[in-house]
């Protein structure tokens, strides 16, 4: 562990920073007088709601955005980046939420992609020297204390390994400023600890790390310093020792802090439950990972309960949800709602039997981004008799209902004809809920309901789900936010490699217990070949 994998660049006070940055898009001020300074050997957390201006600031630091005023600082001196290339050569690299790896290449190929070690061949041509590449890769892995099968195809590698490769790729190119955008969203608790270990090691080696997160406990556990943004401004910047999470929350939320606190509270006991509302038995289906199909999935959902589905991203949760709402064909099994067999039925049949669906992929499935707000909130209701006059749409009734739906979930919007993309992330998701709950479905299938939603929006959505349960409705909730699952659910089913590996009841909830299950290997052990 003593060997270093970071090459820090001399001794400076501010390795990277921004001084009074202004940036606006049209009439929208994304950054106003934003300052930040990150020294070497520092982990600096940046927190704030969606739309607070974090991404704009990060884009400026990477040379992806020219600022209207103020300056980016590198090594104590103001710079004006001509483009992202210059930022990279200054040692600044970013790990995005969506990894930038080519899935069809091996991990090793991804590591060296764009900067391959070469050796001359035929005198004048250059070929990639894979031996050197592998040597470098092994060295970097050893020093970080992580063993990686470098010849593995990237698409089949676990998510946390892919994340390491992303980080190593930046280090290999000489980056000592790492910007990580919500890196823990895809990790199980134990994997988070492992990642934090690596980041701390990099800090000891002299790296500067900017850690974007909305999980304040993680900020407290990892970061040295925290900068809080709200509405395009930096509202606070302090050492993490000087600020606790509730203070951070106040800065993040501003005057709205109270609104979010109100919904904090234990949900009551589940309602008396009779026969299960939904029943899934022996479901088998293909998944994105051919080695880990959904296998023998069985579960019951009773009236008045919220059943959580937990798992490390990519272990079959998404596919299970798709099967539950008729968007993926299964190989065998049975799905029934209210005693109606709906195995491999279309989505419309599930809806007709009282189901609502909140998609995890709001941008591509939950909404039609370029369509109007009216079209988005009314989609699916166009054939209901209430909105028809003969064969025609009753536009007046249609628009009236659209307004009523939006008001019910308190969606902030301009006019019904605006594109839905003009709404903030939180309002977009509230719109999705407004649409999916309009017909009072008995069973809500909800996946990643608060992804990219600000704290106020999260509060609205959580209280909505709880009130749905109070009135006897059922929810199947898949989420990568363990806190969210533990807050909302009556019990949590944990998935690993396409199978259910355990059920945890509310009394037993703990991140350790659920985390262990998330990492379980349910497959029968293969012959001993390592």
């Amino acid at each position, binding site marked *: 562990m003593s060997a270093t994998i970071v090459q820090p660049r001399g001794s400076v006070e501010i390795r990277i920073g921004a001084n009074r940055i202004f940036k606006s*898009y*049209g*009439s*929208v*001020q*994304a950054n106003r007088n934003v300052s930040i300074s990150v020294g070497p050997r520092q982990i600096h957390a940046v927190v704030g709601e*969606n*739309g*607070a*201006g*974090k*991404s*704009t600031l990060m884009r400026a630091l990477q040379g992806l*955005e020219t600022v209207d005023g103020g300056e980016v600082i590198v090594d104590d001196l103001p710079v004006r980046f001509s483009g992202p290339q210059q930022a990279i050569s200054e040692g600044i690299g970013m790990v*995005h*939420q*969506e990894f930038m790896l080519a899935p069809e290449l091996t991990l090793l190929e991804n590591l060296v992609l764009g900067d391959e070690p070469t050796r001359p061949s035929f005198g004048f041509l250059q070929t990639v020297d894979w031996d050197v590449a592998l040597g470098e890769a092994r060295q970097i892995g050893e020093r970080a204390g992580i063993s990686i099968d470098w010849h593995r195809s990237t698409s089949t590698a676990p998510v946390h390994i892919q994340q390491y490769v992303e980080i190593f790729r930046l280090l290999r190119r000489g980056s000592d400023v790492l910007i990580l*955008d*919500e890196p823990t969203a895809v990790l199980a608790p134990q994997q988070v600890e492992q990642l934090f270990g690596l980041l701390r090691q990099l800090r000891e080696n002299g790296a500067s790390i900017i850690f974007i997160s909305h999980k304040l406990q993680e900020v407290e556990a990892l970061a040295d310093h925290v900068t809080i943004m709200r*509405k*395009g401004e930096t509202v606070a910047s302090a050492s993490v020792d000087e600020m606790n999470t509730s203070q951070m929350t106040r800065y993040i939320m501003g005057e709205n802090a109270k609104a979010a606190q109100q919904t904090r509270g234990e949900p009551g006991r589940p309602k008396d439950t009779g026969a299960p509302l939904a029943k899934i038995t022996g479901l088998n289906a293909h998944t994105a990972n051919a080695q880990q199909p959904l296998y023998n999935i069985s579960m019951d959902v009773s009236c008045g309960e919220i059943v959580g589905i937990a798992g490390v991203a990519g272990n079959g949760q998404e596919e299970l949800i798709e099967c539950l*709402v008729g*968007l993926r064909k299964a190989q065998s099994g049975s799905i029934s709602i209210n005693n109606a067999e709906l195995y491999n039925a*279309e*989505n*419309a049949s599930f*809806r007709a039997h009282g189901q609502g*669906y909140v*998609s995890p*992929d709001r*941008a*591509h*499935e*939950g*909404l*039609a*981004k*370029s*369509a109007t707000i009216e*079209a988005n909130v009314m*989609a*699916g209701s*166009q*054939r209901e008799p209430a909105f*028809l006059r003969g*064969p*025609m*749409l009753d*536009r007046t009734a249609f628009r009236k209902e659209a307004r009523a739906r939006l008001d019910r979930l308190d969606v*902030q919007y*301009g*006019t019904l004809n*605006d594109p839905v*993309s*003009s*709404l*903030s*992330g939180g309002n977009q998701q509230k719109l999705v809920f407004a*649409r999916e709950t309009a017909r009072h479905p008995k069973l809500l299938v909800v996946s990643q309901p608060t992804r*990219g939603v600000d704290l106020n929006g999260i509060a609205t959505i959580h209280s909505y789900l709880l009130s749905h349960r109070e009135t006897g409705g059922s929810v199947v909730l898949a989420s990568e936010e363990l806190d969210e699952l533990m807050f909302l659910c009556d019990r949590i089913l944990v998935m690993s490699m396409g199978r259910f590996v355990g059920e945890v009841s509310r009394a037993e909830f703990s991140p350790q217990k659920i985390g262990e299950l998330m990492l379980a290997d349910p497959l029968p052990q293969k012959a001993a070949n390592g």
Partner: protein
Amino acid sequence: MVDGGSENVVAIDARPPRWTLAAENAMRFSLPVLLAFLAGAVLLLAIGENPVAIYQLMLSEGFGSERRIAATLSASTPLLFTAVATAVCFRSGVFNVGVDGAFVLGGLGAAVIGYALPVALGWTIAPLAIGSAMLIAAFWLWVPGVLLAKLEVDEVVSTLMLNFVALGISGFLVNSVFLSETSGNNTTETIHEVAELSRLLPPSTLHSGFLLGLLCVLGYAFWTQRTPQGFEAALVGFNNRFARSVGISVPGTIILVMIISGLVSGAGGAAHALGQVHKFSDGFSAGYGFTGMAIALLARNSAIGILLGAILFGALASAGTTVQLFSDIPLDIVNVIEGTVMIFAVVELGRLTLWRGTGQ
């Protein structure tokens, strides 16, 4: 976060005022046209002509008198049909380029019925001919519709290739089974006089098919704005994953818009056969399907845009023909303008929008 700029900005009122939206729509229509005329002007200069004089001549030949206007509307008649037939598919994200073939087969069907049925049937021949043409063309486009909806066969390839098949079939038929015994090669008999669509402004060839075309545009506007099916088709076009996840049948919608496209194409072919040429011969469609595509693109599938576009291209065609008589300008200049309009119409004019919003 992944979305980049637009989501990560403070939500101050970011909406453009209403008038800029209208201005933007007008510009999206007129800018490609202006740029295309500019490109045509360069070409005219290059061959030593005065573009201003030529364009003036074209303008007066297109709209200069009642007769010229009638000629323009006459030339725009088939385009009304083909543009609607294209737009109805484009609107749902189905890139159907097979309207031309459906138009040709519809025309052939209508012409054959127009001469083969006994004259005694009188005025009923025309509606029978139009109805059959619509059914033939609808079946023709239903095939690639099903292939796309059920088997994910790329509709661009299938419909493009089916155009050649349609040309081949019609070419074979008018040289064999339906070959006229009196009027020579590559053509059917002339239809009965009772089957002809009435002329609106004789001696101009403007015929009542133009009114039928207007009816199609109106029907299209109504269907898109006022029916649940039209609403569903729009959602499928915006985002088919979204449409599917709110319970809309995407395959059903694809097949439906292909059938509608076929019905309209067939009606267009029938109107052209019964109203304009009174028979079917090889070279029946002067690329009407493709001009219709240019119009649909230019109009961004709006009904009003289709109407304006059809008249514009009708004027180009009718003026182009006569300009050729009065000057050395070849008719090809019209094709150049048409092609350039198509290219400019599909350019995303993001950087040219009046309202500079969150664009990066």
